[in-house]
């Protein structure tokens, strides 16, 4: 599986570490229930999904990668830093 790193170019997925769904946002306001939801619950969709990948053997950037969990088709990747802007 090739991941198009916006900085390094297309790289084999073995260069990356996977975190998971990029959608959940860390709640700021000290709400324990919201934090538990953030930490433990996932949509886990069968289909397109935005995910967090870390280019551990490359530029050390966290990426938001758009990938389909049914066929692994990768349709885009961007730097996670400042993702609010680009999301």
């Amino acid at each position, binding site marked *: 599986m090739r991941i198009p790193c916006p900085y*390094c170019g297309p*790289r084999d997925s*073995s260069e990356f570490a996977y975190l998971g769904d990029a959608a959940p946002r860390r709640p700021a306001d000290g709400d324990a229930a919201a934090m538990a939801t953030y930490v433990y619950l996932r949509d886990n969709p069968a289909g397109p999904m935005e995910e967090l990948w870390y280019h551990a*053997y*490359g*530029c050390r950037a966290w990426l938001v990668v758009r990938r389909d969990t049914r066929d692994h088709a990768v349709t885009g990747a961007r730097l996670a*830093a400042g993702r609010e802007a680009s999301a």
Partner: protein
Amino acid sequence: MADLVHRGGYAGLGRRVGSGDGVVAVEQAGLAAATVIARRGKAEAAAARLGGHLGLAVADAAKRAVSPAATVLGTGPGTWLVFGGEDPGFVAGLAAALAGLAAVIDQSDGQAVLHLSGARLPEALEKGVRIDLDPARFTPEDVAVTSIAHIGVTLWKIDAAPTFAVALPRSYAGSFRHWLEASAGPAGLAVVSD
């Protein structure tokens, strides 16, 4: 008062295998090196200042810029790995020049650097590098941070001969040496380290 002698990452690893004329590896010891990381939102300004200080054009990209005095390698967003000569003041000079624009962290002893050349180099590199090194696609302007045989490396091209340079964390020097020996083995490998 102790007087300390400096040793390169490949110290003691120099050796010839087979005919030795397939691939030639030469250690680049004693080079000053630093990681330069731009302050938040200052990547462009830092690149410009870095270029100005070293007299070359630096971009915020996986590109190489080179002058007689220094080599600047883009290794990540707003991040560069900069090699100088053996001038002990090199890193301090960078820090001063980039004050307020970037953090400058000394890595002079963290990286073990080899220059690789030889008629059979491309086929040896092919056995570890998972990126396309076709001359038309990977030029002396390009830099790749990637991995070889489970070892993280920074790889760049010095000339079209081709001569490549590879920098890796010094603690891995021995294991990298094993990969190089095995991969260049049938063609013969000479490692020169000082």
